[in-house]
């Protein structure tokens, strides 16, 4: 404890870097995944090749990517952010597609028949209804990204991963445990924020999660097909 307190400045520095390195790829990922997912649902023929591509992203070892990228992006944050973005995409695109496909056909048809244009239909009807599945994907991508950042320490950019490597080199377990606990806390906090976000953006789902006569929430982690895709 006294070690952690004594190094709180350094811990805070790497904690912020860790968050930045973990969340930027998820942000990029969702910005790309939504339009790509919409395209895959709209033009069905684009889906098989993109699914294959996401599977490749998922399977690519980050280490290999670092050594390739280092020739182009050097020892900058981008060398970590790019591989993690690809990983996020491998989780998020299939979830966006699953989410959009989970919209019941009668609802989509009713939207057409009411006179929604196709862009408006996507924004006002399909994406809101896909939200639970998309956010489930965001949770997987975010938690994975937070845990994967540490690997970046192999090229010297790894957030809290710094302490993991440093602790091993100095044979100083306290440092390792402290970093590990902080990473876990980050992951849990981020996940909680996303759960709250889902409740906030999907008020219509509230009643469905509560079993009749009980206040117990049934955890539903729907449509996390990233594992299947990979």
């Amino acid at each position, binding site marked *: 404890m006294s070690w952690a307190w004594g190094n709180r400045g350094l811990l805070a520095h790497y904690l912020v870097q860790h968050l930045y390195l973990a969340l930027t790829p998820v942000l990029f990922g969702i910005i790309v995944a939504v339009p790509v997912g919409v395209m895959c649902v709209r033009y069905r023929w684009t889906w098989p090749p993109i699914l294959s591509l996401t599977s490749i992203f998922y399977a690519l070892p980050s280490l290999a990517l670092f050594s390739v990228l280092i020739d182009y992006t050097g020892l900058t944050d981008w060398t970590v952010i790019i591989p993690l973005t690809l990983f996020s995409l491998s989780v998020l695109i299939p979830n966006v597609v699953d989410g959009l496909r989970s919209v*019941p056909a*009668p*609802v989509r*048809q*009713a*939207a*057409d*028949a*009411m*006179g*929604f*244009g196709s862009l*408006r239909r996507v924004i006002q*009807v399909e994406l*809101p*209804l896909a939200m639970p599945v998309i956010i489930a994907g965001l949770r997987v991508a975010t938690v994975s990204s937070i845990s994967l950042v540490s690997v970046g320490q192999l090229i010297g950019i790894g957030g809290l991963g710094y302490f993991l490597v440093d602790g091993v080199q100095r044979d100083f377990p306290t440092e390792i445990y402290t970093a590990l606990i902080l990473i876990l806390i980050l992951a849990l906090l981020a996940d909680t924020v996303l759960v709250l976000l889902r409740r906030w953006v*999907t*008020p*219509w789902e509230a*009643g*469905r999660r509560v079993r009749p006569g009980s206040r117990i929430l049934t955890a539903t982690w729907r449509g996390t097909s990233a594992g299947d895709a990979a």
Partner: protein
Amino acid sequence: MITFESVTKRYPGGTVAVDALDLQIPDGRTMVLVGPSGCGKTTTLRMINRLIEPSEGRILLDGQDIMQTRAAQLRRGIGYVIQQTGLFPHRTIEDNIATVPLLNGWPKARARERARELMDLVGLDAGMARRYPYQLSGGQQQRVGVARALAADPPVLLMDEPFSAVDPIVRGTLQDELIRLQAELRKTVVLVTHDVEEAIKVGDQVAVFYPHGKVAQIDTPEQLLGAPADDYVENFLGFDRGIRRLAFFPAVGLDLGTGTVLAADTPVGQARQAAKRAGESWVLVTSAERLPRGWAALAELESRDGHEVLGQVPLAPYGHTFRVSQDSLRAALDATVLSRTGLAVGVDDEGRVVGVTSYERLRAAIQAAEEAADSEGAGA
């Protein structure tokens, strides 16, 4: 007026869903398209708002080719109700109903106000406005679907098997509601169903489809039941169409007997004479307010002292009654068949006795109605 001019819908692979269809749907009436699965009735409906586009031919809405209006624009002027309601699960009831006004750029407050009006119109409690669709029963959801379709007050309303997903009792109620709404709003309604009973109940006109995209007969329900165009239509209409057709003839046309309707204070002797004069073996005993009390048998009356009054005689229950001003000959016949005396009681809206039927009187009324219908059919 919606006009189909030799409209054909052919799918890739050669399946013909609708085959050179000519159809005219007059304004302010309910046209029901009925037929077996795959007969093209739903395709026909969906071509009206361009959810499906015809391969050949033209569809005119008030004389204008629908292909000349932008699809989204066209659809906002045509209400649409579907079987599984298609309500937006993420929108409250009021926002579901306000969908088309909002698309048309109404301010939110005005659109919601309109939604409340429609909830009232379709018989939904105002307290449901802020609920989500999953919190409503199937029947209530279907009412929301109808309200949503009517929100922008479109002249045309398309209904694609709107009541087939709810249980029979709710279905009956919703059909009655549609008839009531339509009497008030006079929209041009096109309704698709596979249920011929529904078609006959709600349609002003019914188009019966052959199995493969051609129309077998377009007629009023009463004409359809009375004169099916061919064996296919006759089979499709099903059993006892003669009796079902009587539903279109009002009971007002019945010449009801009143000679044997007697108050409870009538002396038995006088009742005996009345029954014999009318040639009936039962008299209907009523209260002083002319409410029915029961049947007294002539045989019983003859075994009694003529100075007794009818109120002292044991009575057989009067059974089912029918309302003369509102019910049909079918209801009158049904009440007569169910009655143990072979006579049934026609009442007014307050339940007071108007008169009694008999098979003879029914036969005369049916015959008169048939003749009137025939001359009307020939004149048209």
